[in-house]
């Protein structure tokens, strides 16, 4: 479809996409620096005050989730626009609101020393023991609200466009195919299915998030207004877990779109695929309760549901996608390059990264492991080698199809270094968890320092590899639109 689009218009549209990706990638790289500093401090190599550590922790979490979600939204938008009519104006508005929100968050954290971690768990924003004041908390919370408004507009637009083309969000998930009313050959493409899922879960998450953010704002302005902390925690994780989880579901569109182009084999939505995505839509909305397994006052059925559905959620889409990726590549004669390599590695990251989460979602294990570094071990692998690798894959793909820029040996070395480094970073977190190192602690006992120091050093290599990815993408931006050949996308990658 892209080949049918006017090339001048394509260049302009790709400019917006490139803005999303470069902002996302640069923020991710800067956040890596904060991660490295924290690990070096925990490893006893760097003298960082506790206040600074928690500010870094806050900006690291917020920045990583925000930037990855932002870039992933750009990826989703890039491919989804081939199937439905999306609003460019809304896409631009999201970018503007994202930048405004980011600036507010940065000022709140660094100028006003706000440091509640990215989860802003009630009543912490208002009860800081004078570590930060009202202004810092308000800047952070309102900044997050502004970010949320941008994303909400974006997902309203994707939902509108999908409903307009396919009739309903149910049809976007292929329910009419599942029920047998429509043939499999008429099923919505994987990109539409994934985008529908993300639209449903993120509109829910952002609505819950807006509620709990405004509640926190009211509490910060007037602490006499107090709220039920358990409900606040439920809403906070209904927002935070779902929103963070959705990043990989946006990122996986890269796998669905580019591997078929590289292998000249279609990735079609069959009934099993559609059922798996519907299951993941439902489970993703419900499994945030696995963040509450230590809250003994939660209704027991919710905790059991959190464990059971967390097991179930890890499987449908992941198995279908990982198996599909293997099958599409098997004996295809694929010519590996940076984009296809990163996309394939991301499947490994997703698959391996989900395992510690499933382990931690087991109630009896959770009571021991959840407050240890085991959990960062999960999400660094899952996000770093899964979701973020998908984003980097897309950056190389876009550079390839939209310019004549060639990759060098340095890029290939960076891919290997990045993979080994993120495995090392995640591995040290898992080892730390296994030796009962608590997470979110600024200071470590000497017995806990070794893995942290190792992680900090591995992080430096990961950062350097990321810089090489970014340099390649910046080089592409300077020459974008120089691709020759009439068939813009497909022939060039095959």
């Amino acid at each position, binding site marked *: 479809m892209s080949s049918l689009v006017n090339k001048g218009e394509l260049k302009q549209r790709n400019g917006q996409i490139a803005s999303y990706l470069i902002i996302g990638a640069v923020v991710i790289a800067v956040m890596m620096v904060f991660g490295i500093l924290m690990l070096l401090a925990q490893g006893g190599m760097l003298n960082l005050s506790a206040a600074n550590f928690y500010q870094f922790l806050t900006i690291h979490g917020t920045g990583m989730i925000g930037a990855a979600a932002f870039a992933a939204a750009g990826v989703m938008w890039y491919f989804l626009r081939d199937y439905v009519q999306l609003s460019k104006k809304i896409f631009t508005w999201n970018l503007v609101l994202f930048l405004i929100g980011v600036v507010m968050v940065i000022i709140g954290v660094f100028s006003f020393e706000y440091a509640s971690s990215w989860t802003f768990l009630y009543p912490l924003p208002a009860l800081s023991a004078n570590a930060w004041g009202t202004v810092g908390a308000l800047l952070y919370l309102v900044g997050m609200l502004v970010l949320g408004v941008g994303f*909400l507009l974006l997902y*309203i637009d994707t939902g509108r466009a999908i409903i307009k083309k396919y009739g309903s969000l149910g049809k976007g998930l292929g329910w009419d195919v599942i029920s047998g009313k429509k043939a499999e050959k008429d099923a919505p493409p994987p990109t539409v299915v994934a985008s529908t899922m993300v639209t449903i879960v993120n509109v829910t998450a*952002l*609505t819950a998030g807006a*509620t709990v953010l405004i*509640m926190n704002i009211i509490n910060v302005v007037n602490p006499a207004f*107090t*709220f039920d902390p358990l409900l606040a925690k439920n809403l906070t994780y209904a927002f935070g877990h779902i929103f963070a989880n959705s990043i990989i579901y946006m990122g996986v569109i890269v796998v669905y779109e580019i591997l078929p182009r590289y292998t000249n084999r279609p990735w079609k939505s069959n009934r099993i695929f559609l059922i798996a995505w519907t299951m993941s839509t439902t489970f993703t909305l419900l499994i945030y309760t696995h963040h509450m397994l230590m809250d003994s006052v939660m209704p027991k059925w919710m905790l059991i549901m959190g464990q059971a559905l967390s097991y179930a959620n890890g499987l449908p889409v992941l198995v279908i996608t990982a198996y599909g990726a293997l099958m599409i590549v098997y004996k295809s004669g694929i010519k590996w390059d940076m984009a296809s390599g990163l996309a394939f590695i991301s499947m490994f990251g997703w698959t391996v990264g989900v395992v510690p989460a499933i382990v931690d979602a087991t109630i009896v294990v959770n009571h021991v492991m959840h407050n240890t570094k085991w959990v960062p071990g999960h999400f660094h692998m899952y996000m770093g080698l899964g979701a973020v690798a998908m984003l980097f894959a897309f950056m190389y793909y876009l550079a390839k199809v939209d310019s004549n820029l060639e990759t060098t040996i340095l890029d290939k070395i960076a891919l290997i270094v990045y993979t080994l480094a993120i495995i090392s970073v995640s591995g040290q977190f898992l080892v730390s968890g296994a030796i009962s190192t608590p997470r979110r602690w600024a200071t470590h006992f000497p017995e806990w320092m070794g893995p942290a120091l190792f992680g900090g050093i591995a992080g430096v290599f990961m950062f350097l590899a990321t810089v090489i990815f970014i340099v390649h993408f910046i080089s592409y931006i300077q020459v974008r639109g120089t691709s020759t050949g009439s068939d813009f996308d497909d022939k060039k990658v095959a």
Partner: protein
Amino acid sequence: MIKKWRSNSLLSGLILFGVLLIPFIRQFLESVMVLHMLVQLPLLVLVGWLIGITITRNFQSHFDSWNSNGIPGTLLFVMITMYWMIPRTLDEALSIWYIELFKYVSLPVIGLLLYDSWKKLQSIGKSFIYLNYLSMFGLMAWLYIDSPIQICNNYLAAEQKILGWGLLGITAFMVLYLVQAVFTDQTEEAI
């Protein structure tokens, strides 16, 4: 036919406004917190909506000159309704005459603006406003149900909770409406 319907709506709006001004009705609605916020206030907005059907048609060019895309009118609507969701404003409407007067003026005016703006808003704007109110009603429900203190001087803490449950009911209804709207087939409709 349409002309008759429009004049009927103007008349209906004025009659409804007159009914809401009757001292007995006014005092009754304001004596119970849930009736004050969830009946009287929406009815005053409805007054403006009904009157707006005629007014906006007769002064269409005036409205178009400053509210061509519906966003300014919607922003005013959001700001005024947010103001009236603050518990203190309900209290002050009972205690201070000019706040009560403001209520009887501002809510019909924004009802009128809502009528003019809603048809001009694009579907994205409508959806955004809808979701905004969904989370706002949810939040207010939570605030009124969960507040450990008596928020208004004129209403008991028990009344706050009833209002909170009322708001929660509205939130639940809005969620159900949203779910049916996005999961039922709308192929034939212009979205």
